[in-house]
């Protein structure tokens, strides 16, 4: 098989791009399998070492924090609950509010849509004090509800769903009406299956969004039971080990590698659905 110069060039660009993305991750992974002393004296490693199981085992099971009770495994679970809750609720609420905006032609639908859209200008960081006040008044600090609820409204997802619903021909709705589908059935039997791809894509984005939240959980949680992975990154394994002032770099790299896994898994699981939807245009 012969390649044209353009093809060779584009492959080179692609390969460079892949290396640019993958090398730092590999670099971190390789480093995470070495002993702290080796990293300390020789710097970061490019090849695998022998402390893989020891480092990763310690990361997952060692109890840390002031209470000496929270483990990284617990933080992973917390992060997962938070990200999953945010992503699921965001997708469900956005899909439903977009449905209301597009199909129920009430008077103020357009202004309400713009009102929702404007909230893009006020992200959580901007309204962090009022949000905290509300959540703490409701007694939701140090709860999963408190971690999830203030983050579930999404202008972006509402916007995407709205645009998608607008492309669905009116005849489909009319035909469904004649077939006896009420508004609820139309949503469940038509809009949700038709927007499968959209749901998967939105879920991926929102999961990553929820997973990478830092400021909100930091302010919201005083109880270490509710710490999340991203918070832990700053806090965990910073203390000295057995009285010797040796940075626990190996464990910290292991922790970073592990913290990347959940979003990656979500993408891998959902992308099949996502790509299938892209190939089979069903409209």
């Amino acid at each position: 098989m012969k390649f044209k110069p353009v093809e060779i060039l584009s492959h080179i660009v692609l390969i460079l791009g892949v290396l640019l993305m993958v090398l730092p991750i590999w670099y971190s992974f390789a480093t995470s399998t070495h002993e702290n002393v080796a990293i300390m004296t020789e710097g970061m490693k490019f090849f695998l070492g022998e402390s893989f199981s020891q480092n990763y085992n310690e990361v997952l099971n060692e109890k840390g924090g002031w209470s000496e009770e929270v483990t990284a495994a617990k933080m992973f679970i917390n992060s997962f609950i938070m990200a999953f809750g945010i992503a699921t609720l965001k997708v469900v609420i956005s899909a439903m509010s977009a449905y209301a905006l597009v199909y129920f032609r009430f008077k103020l639908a357009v202004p309400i849509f713009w009102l929702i859209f404007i909230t893009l200008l006020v992200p959580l960081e901007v309204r962090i004090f009022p949000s905290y006040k509300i959540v703490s008044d409701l007694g939701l600090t140090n709860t999963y509800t408190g971690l999830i609820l203030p983050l579930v409204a999404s202008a972006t997802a509402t916007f995407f769903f709205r645009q998608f619903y607008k492309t669905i021909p009116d005849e489909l709705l009319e035909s469904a009406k004649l077939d006896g589908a009420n508004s609820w059935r139309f949503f469940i039997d038509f809009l949700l299956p038709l927007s499968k791809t959209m749901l998967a894509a939105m879920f991926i984005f929102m999961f990553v969004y929820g997973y990478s939240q830092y400021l909100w959980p930091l302010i919201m949680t005083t109880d270490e039971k509710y710490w999340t992975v991203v918070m832990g990154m700053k806090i965990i394994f910073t203390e000295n080990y057995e009285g010797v002032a040796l940075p626990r770099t190996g464990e910290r790299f292991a922790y970073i590698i592990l913290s990347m896994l959940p979003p990656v898994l979500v993408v891998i699981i959902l992308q099949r659905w996502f790509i299938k939807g892209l190939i089979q245009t069903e409209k």
Partner: protein
Amino acid sequence: MSFLELQNITKIYPNGTKAVNETSLNIENGEFVVFVGPSGCGKSTLLRMIAGLEDITSGEIVLDSNIINNIDPSERDVAMVFQNYALYPHMTVYNNMAYGLKNRGISKQEIENKVNDAAKLLEIDSYLERKPSMLSGGQRQRVAMGRAIVRNPKIFLFDEPLSNLDAKLRNQMRLEIKKLQRQMGVTSIFVTHDQTEAMTLGDRIVVINNGIVEQVGTPKEIYSKPNTKFVAEFIGSPQMNIFNCKIDNGTAKIDNHSINLDKSVNNDDASIGIRPDDIQISDSGSITCKANLVEYLGSDMIIYSSLGDQEFSCKLSSKIDVKAGNEFKFDIQPNLVHIFDNSSGKRLD
């Protein structure tokens, strides 16, 4: 009492457009009625009001002795075939047909029987597991019909269902729809802007223009005795020739020709119409014209000519030898002439 009665139906859209104006119509059980008219004339709106997809501004629709104005579309017992078929893209053909039945709480076994029967009737039984995106235009059309048939409705409503098909398939599906309707005996209303479809399908044709019913009648009545100038021009291909003229005591004056109409009509602003195939060419004809253009269609040909400054066409057997630029002679038979009043558009004789 008729099976379906439209009583003074009016539709005014929120922006003030009057789509349908005081329309009344009776349709008998088992009849195949075609609504025909130019686009934007309100024929689809009328159909959608019968289906319940459009609110009625005023008037009443009575189906099988029940006023259905405020009844939900799904409970009206009507089935509709849409122009773009509106198949459910994410469902298989089987589920497309079964969906409406499922919503009515019919047992699985019965649904299966009904769908299979309809599929066999329409010869789509081998595609039941496919999705609509994997079907051709004609097959999609059949699925859309199947979806209507399985529900066993009181009325079939067709909203220009053939306009997305190519010419050959259109003719074939037209025949099949007609056959199917005969076979099932279900009252049907078919909306189209194509006068050939209207003529071939309908037991009765309703010609609509600007939201007003211009004429209701069998295809033959509509063709041979159009009530208005609009109907005369709209039905028939090639279009009927219309000459503006003065009629003085039964004699029409066009240019410097006089045509005896054999009727005692006086009108200063009238028009007479004659179908292109009703013009008879003969060497003894009393009017002489020059052929400007000749179109050869195989068995027939069409001659385009003008009488004074008014253009007309005549359709005749291509065995007659007339070439462009030649002169030819013809007669207009009084009994084949239609006379209309120009100001009201109404037929005068």
